[in-house]
């Protein structure tokens, strides 16, 4: 089973969570639960990778806002990677791009070498 099939890649202090193709209430809540699990394990950095995600609906957006809120409460960090243009546009319209670091790929998000690029969608 690949890491993407499992839904996450655990790198120790960083974990990458792979979002499914359609982020609605069910899939959003699954992401939320996985975040919660890893945060409780003491992970300090979470990367949500959306490269397989075609669409995030408004309920999914509200759950993402909840995730960011929860990560902040625990003094951890969350960043997004692999956003398709329409999903980037959704997050920008909502105003979420100002509150989360956005990277073009999960590797860029993990390394943080290039620095976040919140102006350019994938």
């Amino acid at each position: 089973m690949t890491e993407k099939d499992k839904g996450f890649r655990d790198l120790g202090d960083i974990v990458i969570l792979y979002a499914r193709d359609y982020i609605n209430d069910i899939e959003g809540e699954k992401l939320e639960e996985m975040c919660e699990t890893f945060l409780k394990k003491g992970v300090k950095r979470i990367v949500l990778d959306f490269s397989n995600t075609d669409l995030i609906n408004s309920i999914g957006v509200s759950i993402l806002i909840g995730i960011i809120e929860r990560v902040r409460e625990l003094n951890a960090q969350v960043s997004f990677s692999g956003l398709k243009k329409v999903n980037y546009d959704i997050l920008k319209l909502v105003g979420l791009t100002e509150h989360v670091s956005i990277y073009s790929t999960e590797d860029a998000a993990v390394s943080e070498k290039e620095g976040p690029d919140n102006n350019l969608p994938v």
Partner: protein
Amino acid sequence: MRDKSIFPITPDGGFFGRTPLIEHILQVAKKTLHPSPAILLKGKRWVGKTEVLRRVHRELFWEQAEIVPVYYRFKGGLPASDLAEDFLKAVVRQYAAFIERRPALAVSEMPLLKLKRHLQDSGLDFAVDIVSRHLDAKKGLDLTSVLRNALSAPKCVAEEGGQQVFLILDDLERLSGTVLCRGGPSVINEIVETLKEPDFSFIASGRLTTPLEGMLSGCCLETITMTGLGEDDAVAMMAEVARNFSLDFDTEILTLAGKRLGGNPMYIKETLLDLKRGDVPGGLKDLKGFADLYVSEVSRGGIAKALASAVKLGGEVDLRVLGLLMKDKGALSLEEICGRLDLEREDAAGAIGLLAALDLVERNLGSIKWAGDGVERDYIDYVYSTLIRSMSPDEARTWMVRDILRQGSLARGEKMKGELKRDVLAVLSSFRGQSVPGSLFRAGPCGDNGPGVQESEDRENIINLPFMSGSFEARGIEKNESGVPVVMAQGFQNKRYDAGGEVIWIAGVKDAASPVNLGDVENFLRRTSILTKRFRCGRVVRWFVGREGFSREAAGRLEREGVYLTDGPGLQGLKTKTSSGGRVGDAAAAQGISQPREFEVVLPPGRNAELVGVRAAAEISSEMGFDEDSIARIKASVVEACINAFEHSRHSTGRTHLRFIQEPDKLTIHISNPGVYFDETSLIKSPARPGGLPRKRGWGMELMKGFMDEVRVEGMEGGTRMVLVKYLAGKGVEKDDGER
């Protein structure tokens, strides 16, 4: 494309159906391969080859700077030396025009010496040398050098000027009789040898029977055969021209006219031009009008004049041979023709040679057959009738009109036969709560317009149609099924979008040349009874459509059962009544663009049901030509609208109806849900989050407004309808940042 024509062409608005061909030729012209690619464009006369070649020239002249286009249309009957000089002037003139960006120079009638001075002034010394060589050879009466210098001019300017030349040679076959001098080489052979140079890219046009392919063997040659415009393009062209000429028309007649005229642009233009001028009787509103118009055209109108000029028949023998070949569908040998027409072999062979040169007959391995088009056939038939059969012109025309009327009726009947079921489904889908005359559902027995069924809602002789959400053909109703096809449609009556308003229409369709009989009726009643039990719908309307009407017994039985009856003409009337903007003869409708196309999707309640709507939205918007970004935005908006609809539907079994309306410039999507009315103010908006984070809920409407060009919420009886509009041009959208 801006209107910067260099050689005369049809205005862009009147040009139809050839864009893919032009694009293909341009791709070939721009290829840098070795050996250079070449195209032979073949087609019957007046099919539009010249128009295509001139448009290729225009595109290459204005839209790029690397390849120099040189267009030359050969003229028949010129002495070889004059032809050589004319060709040479065209090459150097068009080369200079392209380099200097002076389109007027390309078609200037400047004398050669003046042209030479112009080339000197422009510093095009290599072109000056070509002209000088021509003048020297001409002075020395060296005809061979004159011709070869001219034919090598495109290659010379390309090599010396350092820019690739794409040679566009129109009507190459016109050179077939031209020789350099008595007993000397053929000019066309000389040209062909030049074209065979491996680094020379060109397109040449010629008629179907010209053996250019064989002559050009060895070139990297692609042969393209141009035929008349396809049915849709021909109808669109006629509709456009008719509209420009303020001529009334019927779309079905335009379709028949397009077929009869073979989609040939010249025939179409001549016919409509004569009609506009009033030079010929008839019209385009009905079959009789078109028959009169067409027969006048091919017997004495613009088409007849053009054909008389192009098809110069030698005499009686030619006509008799043509008459025989037109009548005989297969191929005949020369001996058979001689035997059947009692002709000398020499006379028959001479006639066949002439007719082959005119593209009217085709010779292949000793067999000879008719090769003209339908209009040529009718023209020759008229000439044959008057000259050989000694009919008076009026008598010949009357016979032709009768023949067209008979063929037209058959074609219409055949067309309708295949389409009645589709028409019934289309009519059912077009029900949107309209009120129509009850008489449309009361076809009496054949030859009788007597009363039919009466519905309670038909007291005022008006039937209120439901709002249909979907239609389909019902199959497998019973084992060993037989009988007429049955179609069904589901919808809502009286704007009630709930179980109380649900209605099912079950229609039997008899698409045969005989009226609906009692056996058909009994079969239909039995199967509708099974369907009614199976679907358990509160209200079922039964309807029988018979192309040829109903027998007296069948009509009586259906009336007693309360079944609606509609015959073929009635269905057409219903179609007109129910279709929006369904005026017969609407020009834009003929192009298939003004009448909105509609698709409907009904979503049952259930998890992820909105994704079905999303898939439909993606298909429809993609078909309309929206770009990927817009399609993604439409999909996201449909999701949000569906989520709203699900949330506000108070019925656990309530279905959400999606109606997609395609128009030329926009896609409109109606998302209707039975349940409580909601508006924007009633949508939940949660408070902003701590730390400046956005609020959690209430983003659906914002997203839709951000992604669509228009968003509105409309109340309707028993529910709410959300309307989303996206314009193809992306009105008001700044795509870069995702915000308006």
